[in-house]
């Protein structure tokens, strides 16, 4: 087999296997007639009916809003806390037990507590819940990124009299950015997960809410359509993030190496 045919076969299999899985799903569901496993065509049809775009505004936009706000807050808080913690060993020692405890806490364990504490099952509680758990990957990566900076660089800047603010803005932040963005990427997928959890626990709108309602009313096709939508959302957000990251970190030669998949 020549190298050319090998490569062609490889590409062909990359297309053929997913297609074969989908076809097998369709064929199996057609003959199984099991209402719990609707046909692929039914799911796709329902998907189109619901999400393109009749329920898009009522249930997809609120979920995206919560992800965006929660993720945004988490990034700001994570970086703002991570910079001083990365620079000061003493502060790190004091903060680490708390960080270790809260990041090991399974998120759903705090769902009822978040409702209780915030007196809300609306955006306030959802965004706070998402933000709280998305902070940790950003925070820990910021700390590590800052700690990884060559101390000579910081000392040099200091001895040249570069003021503290400028040192952080021009040196520390850019140097830690590749690792911060690796943390942000983890946080983004965590945001999707915590969004689903928080909406599935108690809500009046959102993709997780649709999931809950369709389960409670035994509407299998909408339920499948919601699951597919959540998968697509997670995938698209990740792709979007990589595009933005590539642009923002284009200046950094080593950024690929700093981005564990």
């Amino acid at each position, binding site marked *: 087999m020549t190298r050319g045919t090998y490569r062609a076969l490889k590409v062909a299999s990359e297309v053929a296997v997913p297609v074969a899985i989908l076809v097998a799903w369709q064929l199996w569901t057609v003959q199984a007639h099991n209402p719990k496993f609707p046909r692929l065509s039914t799911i796709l049809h329902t998907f189109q009916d619901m999400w393109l775009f009749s329920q898009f505004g009522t249930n997809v936009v609120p979920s995206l809003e919560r992800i965006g706000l929660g993720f945004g807050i988490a990034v700001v808080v994570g970086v703002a806390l991570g910079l001083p913690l990365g620079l000061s060993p003493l502060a790190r020692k004091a903060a680490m037990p708390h960080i*270790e405890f809260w990041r090991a806490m399974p998120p759903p364990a705090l769902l*009822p507590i978040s409702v209780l504490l915030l007196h809300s099952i609306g955006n306030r509680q959802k965004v706070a819940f998402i933000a709280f758990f998305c902070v940790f990957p950003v925070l820990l990566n910021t700390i590590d990124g800052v700690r990884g900076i060559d101390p000579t660089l910081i000392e040099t800047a200091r001895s040249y009299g570069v003021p503290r603010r400028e040192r952080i803005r021009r040196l520390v932040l850019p140097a830690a950015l590749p690792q911060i963005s690796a943390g942000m990427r983890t946080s983004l997928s965590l945001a999707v997960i915590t969004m689903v959890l928080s909406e599935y626990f108690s809500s009046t709108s959102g993709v997780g809410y649709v999931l809950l309602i369709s389960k409670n009313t035994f509407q299998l096709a909408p339920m499948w359509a919601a699951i597919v939508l959540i998968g697509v959302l997670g995938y698209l957000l990740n792709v979007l993030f990589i595009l933005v990251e590539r642009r923002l970190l284009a200046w950094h030669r080593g950024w690929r190496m700093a981005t564990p998949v």
Partner: protein
Amino acid sequence: MAATGEVAVRLRGARLADALVPVLSIAAALALWELVTRTGLISERDLPSMSSTVRELWALVQTGDFWSAFLHTVRGWAIGLGLATALAVPIGIALGSSPFAASAFRVPIEFLRPIPSAALIPLLFLTLGTNLRSEIFLATFGAFWPLLVQTMYGVRDVDPLALETARSFGVRPLERLVRITLPSSVPYIATGLRISSTVSLILAFTAELFMGTPGLGQAVNIASSFGLETQLYALALATGFLGVAIHIAMTQLERRALRWHPSQRPAAA
């Protein structure tokens, strides 16, 4: 002599401070918790005081019900993680050692991996039902992906020279797998195991919370539905401790299993 003595004293002082700062910091946080409820800044109905929560936790750990729930959660976690390992490592090795297979399954993996397992709860509700099987399916599904991806990377990272050398010395494929591929991908698998152990706990708990399979998640749900706030906080605390314990245990395991490996030689950050 005097100088070395002084250095020693200073070193001991630094080490004491090292140990003291985290302890003081935890004590301060607990005191703050007590304070915000005592002063009424946050109502005791929303946040029970630290002392009453700890007392509640103390009372809980003396009941059989608590330990039964605790062990149920640990069981779901362990079976989920075990099954995920048993599936992900062989599949990861197969996909990692064949570029052909890897590209054939790339798209399905990339699409399934980001689906939050929590989204599958309603589906499991209606198919497998609210039982241990659902909990284990969920924990296994979630824990499978990090392990699979790590194993694939580990296998791809095996030194090709070592493999080719073994091949030219006539070492059989199975032995090459056991002697070269597996040991050299162990660091990756260990990292995957650490990530997956957290995921598996989260999903075991999630299944219990939303589907009512017995365990800490179910206990939290009951405490929340009956308005037993103090118990709710005590249970969340216990769940957090379980998470910390699992995290520490897996980190230690990773370190111990890899003592021989260069990646563990410098103090791990």
